[in-house]
């Protein structure tokens, strides 16, 4: 008996210690949803995970919310798991999720996917991470056009490094190849660290990614940015020309965006609550500082605009995925 008592006492003490540390705060705040959970499709430390945690931290720092929002990592199936989870929370007001283009592309390429982006309730679009093309600092390519010209002259010899075949960087690369009649190989790594390492090692000659992926290596002088993929020059890198300026056809390339969605049938007033919360966040100084440091462009879209935007993105990504033969059959 005494063993049980001690065991019980030990566990009770553990519960108290952990509870006291505030690991799981379940006290409800006044306002529409009493407790909110932020769903992401990446593991801890992944892109969406860090983004959601940053947003929660800033919302708290700006006193826009009282309680911490726990982040929930639904990593199954590159977005499928997160969307299925949202679907299972139909009509609830206590769940939001950080969304990226992966949520659109995965269902397009996965056989038998039971969910799609149209199943979730758009809340707000927050920012776009402009894509840039980067090479090693001592590379012979001065511009993106140089790289593409070389790839055209020597098909299948150059190598682009990036993530999964259906990620934005891969799709952008494939679209550029199709438009410029050039050909290069794609070296894929699941782990983002190894991509930069492959570029530094010289295994790959080029990488497409968000400005933030390269900023430290650029400052250290190891990597050079040769072109902005979007149609505008970047405030963070004003000297870097856009692909269009270099004469590379770059209209309608996929965009790496971030925003929030909710479960299907989320009550309209809750959607408005979150939408206004996020709208106020994007005008705060710490948000602007955060976006500037990462080289992101803030582009707030309300629920209606975000719905239209997601629809457009879905249509153009579907076209691209079909063209490239990646679509599920």
């Amino acid at each position, binding site marked *: *008996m005494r063993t*049980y008592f001690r065991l*019980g006492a030990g*566990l009770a003490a*553990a*519960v108290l210690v*952990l*509870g006291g540390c505030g*690991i*799981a705060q379940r006290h409800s705040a006044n306002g529409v949803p009493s407790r909110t959970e932020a769903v992401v499709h990446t593991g801890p430390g992944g892109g969406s995970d860090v983004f959601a945690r940053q947003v929660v931290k800033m919302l708290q720092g700006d006193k826009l919310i009282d309680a911490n929002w*726990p982040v929930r990592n639904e990593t199954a199936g590159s977005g499928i798991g997160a969307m299925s989870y949202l679907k299972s929370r139909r009509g609830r007001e206590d769940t939001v999720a950080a969304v990226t283009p992966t949520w659109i592309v995965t269902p397009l390429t996965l056989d038998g996917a039971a969910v799609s982006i149209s199943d979730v309730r758009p809340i707000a679009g927050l920012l776009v991470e402009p894509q840039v093309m980067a090479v090693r600092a001592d590379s012979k390519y001065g511009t993106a056009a140089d790289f593409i010209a070389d790839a055209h002259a020597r098909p*299948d010899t150059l190598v682009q490094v990036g993530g999964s075949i259906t990620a934005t960087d891969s799709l952008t690369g494939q679209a550029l190849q199709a438009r410029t009649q050039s050909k290069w190989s794609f070296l894929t790594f699941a782990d983002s660290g190894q991509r930069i390492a492959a570029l530094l090692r010289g295994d790959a000659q080029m990488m497409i990614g968000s400005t933030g992926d390269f900023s430290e290596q650029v400052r250290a002088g190891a990597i050079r940015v040769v072109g902005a993929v979007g149609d505008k020059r970047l405030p963070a890198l004003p000297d870097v020309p856009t692909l269009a300026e270099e004469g590379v056809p770059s209209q309608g390339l996929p965009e790496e965006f971030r925003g929030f969605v909710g479960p299907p049938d989320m009550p309209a007033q809750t959607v408005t609550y979150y939408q206004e919360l996020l709208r106020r966040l994007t005008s705060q100084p710490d948000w602007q500082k955060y976006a500037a440091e990462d080289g992101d462009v803030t582009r707030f879209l309300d629920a209606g605009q975000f719905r239209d935007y997601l629809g457009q993105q879905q249509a153009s990504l579907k076209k691209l995925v079909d063209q490239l033969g990646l679509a599920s059959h």
Partner: protein
Amino acid sequence: MSIEEPAPDGPIRTELPVTEEIRGPAEEARPRPDRHAIGQLTFGIISVAVGVAALIDAAGLAKFGKSGQPGPGLFPDIVAALLVVLGAWLAILTVVRPTRAEPVEEPVEPGGFKRAATVWLAFVVSIPLLVLFGFAPAMAALVAFLVFGVERIRGFRPVLAVVLVPAVVYLLFSVVLGVDLPESVLFPV
């Protein structure tokens, strides 16, 4: 002293009718009982079957890509073929050269296999219970079956275990740490 109950059908009819002296130095000289050979043969055949099944499922995958690079089907095919060969080899060896002493688990008590099978089946049955009734009730049922039904413990202590084990685990994981536990389909929260 051999096992009284006939072994249930299935691939793992491998429990040995063991005597005490088998652990002694006589082990090398004694011919192994056939059950071990049957088990080993079954294992070889299952390996071959797994390999063949994988070959069939992977048949639709390209072995090589457009420019000759290894495709998604190459690696599974190589491994599956390896399994077929090795499994067949093991099966043939077992038949051709039967009695090689192999390290086997320690002797078991009579009825031991039946008890292990019951525990496993109880675990399997608890899975639909988890779906239907959620974590705490299903696990309490599992623990109750194991301590009362299998272990036949009587008195106050097993009741405590049936209540405390699922309750403490539930409190610790679900309430304190916010970890997901199976929820009931019948009685959603």
